Structure formats: C-alpha cells, structure tokens
C-alpha cells in the first residue's frame, strides 16, 4: 500500500499567500471569540467547589437546586454530567463562607432531597489563592516552552526557522483556545497540559520539514527557494499524514473510551493536531521564505583572505 504517489513536487508555495490569509482569518476569529466569550475556566483556575455525585436512579434536578438554595447556596449550578444519574454541582468561592466545609454541607443538603442520598464520586475544592497561582504557572510554562524551543531551533537551524516555527505554532495555540472559547468547552489543567504538549508536538512537525529544507538546500543546487520548500514538503507529506493519523487514532480512542475526564483533553489534542499539520507545513514554510532564507545560509562561506586596505 502506498497512499502518496506524487510524481512532481506539489507547488505549495504558489498558494502560500492563500494559506496564510486563511490562517490569519482563523487566528483573528479565535482572538475575537477569546475576547468576546472568554474561556470557560474550570474550578482549578477560578477557585470554588465542584461536587460530583452518582444516584442509583436518575434524579430530578429542580429539587436538588431548591434544597441547595435552602442550604444557603443559591448560586449553585446543578447539571447532569455524562449520564442522567450523575450530577455535577459547582459552587463559586464567596467571602464569609467557610469554604473548606462546603463539600460536607452540600452532601448534607443532598441527603434531604427525596430519592435517597447519592454516592459521592468526586470533590474538588480550590481556594482563591491557588487558582491564581495555577493560572500564573500555566502562563510561565507556556513562556518557558516558547523560549526553550526558540533557543533550541535557533541553535540547531537558524533564527528564521525558529521565528517561523514559533509564530506558526503559537497561532495553533491561540486557535485551540479560540475553539474552547467558541464552544465554551471547559478549560482545565489537563487541557492546558494538552495545549503545551501540542505545542511541542507541532513544532516537531516543523522540525521535520525544516530538516528536509536544509538537506535539500545542501544537495540540490539548481532549485530556487520556493522550489526547495516545495520539494521538502512534498517529500515529507506522506510521513506527516501517517504520523498524525496514527497519533490521532490514539487520541480518538481517548475521546471515545476515556470518559468525561479525558474528553476535553483529547478534544484539545484533536484540534491541535489538525491545525498543527496545517500551520507547520503551510504557514511556517512560507514564513521562512518571506523571512529571506536562501542557500547561502547553509553553505559554509569560503574562507576569504582578509587583505589589508591600503
């Protein structure tokens, strides 16, 4: 079996502008959604309490809300989680509330509702100071990844490649966030981990293409820069699709079998992988071209004798 039977190099660079305009538009939309809708942050970031309970029979949500309201939690959000028998209750942190005791009081209130006391599945309580720190740590991690990768790429290749790779892949990150903002999917710590993992992963995609670009520049003399890029992309497209296909199979498996906890994690990965291919191949390469990459940068300059100027 061979999927890709490509005779000549595909002229990707001819459409470079179109690709970049598409990605610029997507990027602008993502920023727009982030600005207007914002992220639906999980309790880990906002602080608050989350209680997940399991009933043996599907309960009515309204009595639960009323009972919580009566127990001094009118701001409790009650919703089904995964199945009709699982209920998720979210409570924001409030001043003057003995926050570390919330989970017991909620369970107490639930046991007064008709239909019997539920089984406690999970409690997450995050104090206000912790949430802020987690958000700050997340931002630091993102910064460290970006700087680390830039330094590595600049050492290994050239600054043009490192700038292009980072621009292309940061735009992936923004687009993933845009998806989360648009659909109001829950953004948790696990999703943050997925986003950063995707960043490393799709940079690696750019690296594979750039490796080829460098090799082609060194080997094939007669080609100009767009031809070299076309050649490199065409030669690696088969591996790109197969690799990402394989990773996506794994992610799909998590999406299907991983349950609620891994759901958004794998969604972030899915969006990241799809846009990762697109951006590292069709966005990063034109950027390198526009930044002015050329053969001379890869061939060691001949040692010219410095002659004294008379």
């Amino acid at each position, binding site marked *: 079996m061979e999927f890709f039977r490509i005779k000549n190099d595909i002229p990707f660079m001819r459409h470079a502008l179109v690709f970049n305009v598409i990605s610029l538009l997507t990027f602008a939309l993502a920023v727009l959604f982030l600005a207007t809708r914002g992220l639906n942050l999980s309790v880990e970031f906002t602080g608050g309490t989350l209680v997940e309970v399991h009933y043996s029979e599907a309960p009515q949500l309204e009595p639960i809300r009323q009972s919580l309201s009566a127990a001094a939690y009118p701001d409790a959000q009650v919703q089904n989680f995964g199945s009709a028998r699982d209920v998720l209750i979210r409570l924001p942190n409030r001043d003057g509330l003995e926050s570390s005791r919330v989970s017991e009081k909620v369970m107490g209130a639930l046991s007064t509702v008709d239909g019997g006391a539920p089984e406690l599945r999970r409690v997450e309580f995050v*104090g206000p100071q912790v949430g802020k720190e987690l958000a700050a740590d997340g931002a630091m991690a993102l910064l460290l990844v970006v700087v*680390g*990768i830039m330094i590595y790429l600049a050492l290994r290749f050239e600054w043009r490649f490192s700038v292009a790779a980072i621009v292309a892949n940061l735009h992936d990150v923004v687009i993933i966030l845009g998806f989360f903002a648009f659909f109001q999917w829950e953004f948790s710590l696990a999703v943050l*981990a997925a986003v950063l993992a995707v960043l490393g992963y799709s940079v690696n995609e750019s690296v594979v293409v750039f490796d080829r670009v460098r090799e082609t520049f060194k080997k094939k003399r007669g080609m100009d820069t767009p031809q070299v890029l076309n050649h490199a992309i065409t030669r690696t497209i088969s591996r790109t699709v197969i690799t990402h296909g394989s*990773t996506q199979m794994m992610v799909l498996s998590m999406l299907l079998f991983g349950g609620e906890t891994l759901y958004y994690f794998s969604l972030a990965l899915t969006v990241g992988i799809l846009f990762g291919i697109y951006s590292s191949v069709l966005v990063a390469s034109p950027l390198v071209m526009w930044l002015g990459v050329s053969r001379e940068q890869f061939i060691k300059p001949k040692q010219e004798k410095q002659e004294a100027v008379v």
Partner: protein
Amino acid sequence: MNRYPLWKNLMIGIVLLIGLLYTLPNFYGEVPAVQVSSGKATLKLDASSATARIDKALAAAGIRQTGIFADPNSVRARFETTDEQLQAKDVIEREFNPDPADPDYVVALNLLSASPNWLNRINALPMYLGLDLRGGVHFLLQVDMPGAITKRLDSTAADLRTLLRDQGVRHSGIEREGRSIAVRFRDAELRDEARAAIGRFTADLLLADRDGADGIPELVATLTQQAEKTIQEFALKQNITTLHNRINELGVAEPVIQQQGADRIVVQLPGVQDVAKAKDILGRTATLEVRMVDETPGALEAALNGQVPFGSELYTERGGRELLVRKQVVLTGDRLTDAQPGFDGQTQEPAVHLTLDAAGARIFRDVTRENVGKRMAILLIEKGKGEVITAPVIRTEIGGGRVQISGQMTTQEATDVALLLRAGSLAAPMEIIEERTVGPSLGAENIEKGFDSTLWGFAAIAAFMIMYYLLFGVVSVVALAANLLLLVALLSMLQATLTLPGIAAIALTLGMAIDANVLINERIREELRNGASPQAAITAGYERAFDTILDSNITTLIAGIALLVFGSGPVRGFAVVHCLGILTSMFSAILVSRMLVNLIYGRRRKVEKLSIGQVWKPSN
C-alpha cells in the same frame, strides 16, 4: 553491514528483560492485607518481633495468611479473601492494642501486590497509583506564616519586658506594632543602655532608633531575615510532625504528608472516604500541660481503689506505673518555644532541653522554688484525653526558662520525647486551600477507561502499521510494544505516581512515538525508490532519520520539561510520564527496531526485496 555486534544485541536484550521483570508485578493485581505500624512517636515498631506476634496470633485464631512482609516502618500480612482480612484485622488489633481507648499501634486495612515473593525481593513493585485512580482524599494546607511570626513577636515582647526589668533598664512601654516591636524610653541614654542589653541577650533582633510622637526616643526591633526563616522552617516542620501523629489515628495505610513550597503541606490519604473526620483531625489542636504530682501519702492507694481525691486525676505513666496528678495546671504548651534532645552537662546522660518564653520562665522559676524535691508531671492533652509523658523530680529551683528533663532515658527516647513535646500542638494555624476527593468507584472506572483508551488506540495503530508497512510494520509495532513495556517498567521502578492524566500521557506518548518508526520506514522506502539496494536502504534510512528523530524528540521534551517545572497536580502527573515516555521511545524506536531489522535482514547474504509494502516509482 546491517548487523549489530553481539554486545549491542545483548545489551538491548538485557534492558528488555529487566523491563519485563519490573513490569510483571502490575499483572498480578492486588490482594487484601492488614498493615501494622507504630501509632506513637515514642514507640518504635520492632519488625521481627511484630512479625512473630502477628504470625502467632493468626495461627491461634486459625486464619491463614499468604505472607508477612516487614519494612522499617510497618509489617504487613497478606490474605486471600477480604473476609479473612477483616477477621485478621480484629485479631491483630486485639493482640497489639489490648486497650482500645489507648491504641499503641495503627492497624489498617491495605492492599498489597499479589506478585510472588521473589519479585518483592528484587523490589519489583506495581506502579504507584494516584488518588484519582485508587480513591481517597487530597488536601493542600496553607500554614499561616504571618501568624507564626506574630506569635513569636508577642512572646519576644514579653521576653524584652522581663529582660529590661532584670537588667534594671527603665522603659516607658513595650508594644508590638505589626511585624515589629516598639520600646519607648524617657531619654536617649536609657535607649542606648537598653540596646546594649538586648544585643547581649539575642542576635535575632534588628534594632533601629526612632523618634516617636512628641519626640519620645523609641527603639524598634524587627526579626532578622535569618530568624524569620528559622521560625518559618520550624513552624512547618512542627506542623508536619503533628499531622503525622494525628493521621496515625485515622488508620490510613499509606498516608503522604509532604512539604510543598515554603509554606504549604500536602496531605494525601488513600482510601479515606470520611472527609469530615479527616478534616476534624487535621484541624484539631493538642496542648501540653505541666502539673504537679499529688504525693499525699495514701492518696494513690485510695485512688487505685476507686476513690480519687478531689482535685486530682489518675494517670498511667509511660512504663505502666500509676500516677496521681493535680488538676491545677501550672503551665501550658503555649509557653514552650522549643524542645531539643541533648545531653546533661554534668552526667552526660541523654536529656531533653526545653525553652520557655519569658512569662513561662517566671512561672516555672516560682513553682520549682516552692516545690524542690517534689515531682512534676508533663502531660500531652489531646481530644480531652491526657497522657503523662514524663514525671521528673525537681532537684533545684530552675530559672532562665531553660529546663532540662533527664534521667533513665536512652538517646532515642530523648529524641522521641523532644519530638512529642514539639509535635503536640501546631506551631501555626493552617487552612485547607485545596481539596480533592475521589470515590473508590470513580477511581476503578478511571483505571478502566484509561486502559481501554490505550488498548484500542494501540490496536488501531498496530493494525494500520502492519497493513501499510508489512514486515517493517510488525517491527515498528514490536518496538512500540517495547516502548510501552519500558515505560511501565520505569514507572514501576521509580514508583512515580500514576494518575489519569498520566495514563493519558502513556497513550499520547505511544501515539507520538510511532512517528520515529514512520520516519524511518518512509526514508527506507524513499531510498529504495531512488534505486538503493535493500541493505543500503536500511542503513541510509536509519541514519538519515536519526537527526530528525532527535530534533523532534528534543522539542517535545522541552515542552515536557516546562510542564514538569511549572505544572502542579494533574499537569505534573502528565508531564512525568510524557518525559519518561519520550526517553524510552528513543531507545525502542531506534535501537530495538534496528536490532529486529538487523536480525531479519542483516544475516542474509542476498536480499532481493524488503517487506516494507509497496514502493511506488514514478514511471518516466
């Protein structure tokens, strides 16, 4: 040329064998067990005698165990069924804690790996599961450091009052103002005198002159950075020790109590479902009390017969002797600033040195002066229940706030008593700032879901790779399986905590690791397409792909390390596995797969064709 030297094949083989060995315990599952550990800081568990006692007690009760294992802190007995486990727990509880009201040992239900004993002997244990997989409670506690400092400043202010009075330096008022102490004087000369006196007394204070309202000369004392740091470290250490003692009462098999950052403590209680009780215990305060022993002739005998004199209480001293102690409290633990093990200056006997604050020192001096020759008892009061730690005889008046407890103690006992005195109460209040509770059913479900995702994802990749690359696909899948094996072995060896995000990382790492083999296989096809001979194509394919694999793994590793450094909780669990997975994937994708390819093709003299799927050549 496509042959590995023997040593290289052997090395890879040995690594895989070790991997297999350390992965094995994960397949045996777990069996019910009962764990015995010491419940008191002063009591050390003697592993060999405890083993013998458990063995005898179980044999007497006719309960069959399948192995008793001892480690420095606990002894565990394995059972075949949970019924036997529960019966055994009762038997062992009776054997070790004859008095249920005052348990000496923690007897807890636990799960032990069911792997055979020879695996346990080489320390091959199953992966350590996080709370989200096994169920339990996780707390993050914030120690109120400003509170600890304020407390210290208050006692320092009292010390200064005593000091200046003893030195005969007149002051017009000492007050704590936020994080400093202000001392007012009538004139500047008195201030100079006071500064010299305070300087001789302690090096922990930074002194500065200030002219207060109406030009009154003032001395402002603040704690040096060093002193503040010491106070904070001390508070944290003491709180951790106290938590240890309290959690022992919960009967948790493997509690985790760790410092996190400068002022936080993580408490993890696997298997605990009663969150309310856990919170009560964490938040409780214990106190130390000094009282006089009631030595009225005949009173003790009367008390033993059930007639406790009015104003006294009956206690059992450590060592089992009865003691009658007055109810009137001389001193409480609030006055104790430190307790350290050491040696008696004259006799070189082991001793415990206590440091009291100024007010405490004054009380202690007065009491000891009036009671030379009598006994005083030091009690630890917890949950309204007291225990006499020690009841020494007062030999002379003791002033200066430095008290020494000595006599008939070993060095170990001195250390333990000091610890107990310090550990009785919390040095600074704590607040729960994060809580995670996971029910046991959710934990089991999480394991199942994580396992299913990995399994199906792996199966899909394997099916595709074999269809697309034929024999080379098989090699890639074997390499990927080796990667999984090594990763699980490494996690088991390191006993790194595996969480649900960690399982997700295993799956994701496998999905990414196949990239290296795809790169290699595509390269080999390309070399073949360009007309290389099969053997040359293999060599060139592996060599050319290596640089790219290295580059791409390093960029992924950078992201992984950033997550490890800045991640907490679930992110860290993900990052650890992700980073380890990248390392094992380099090994398996390059070395293991090459070894297999070499074994298949390297020995043949003439290879006509590689089984790597169709290699399409443009026809022009």
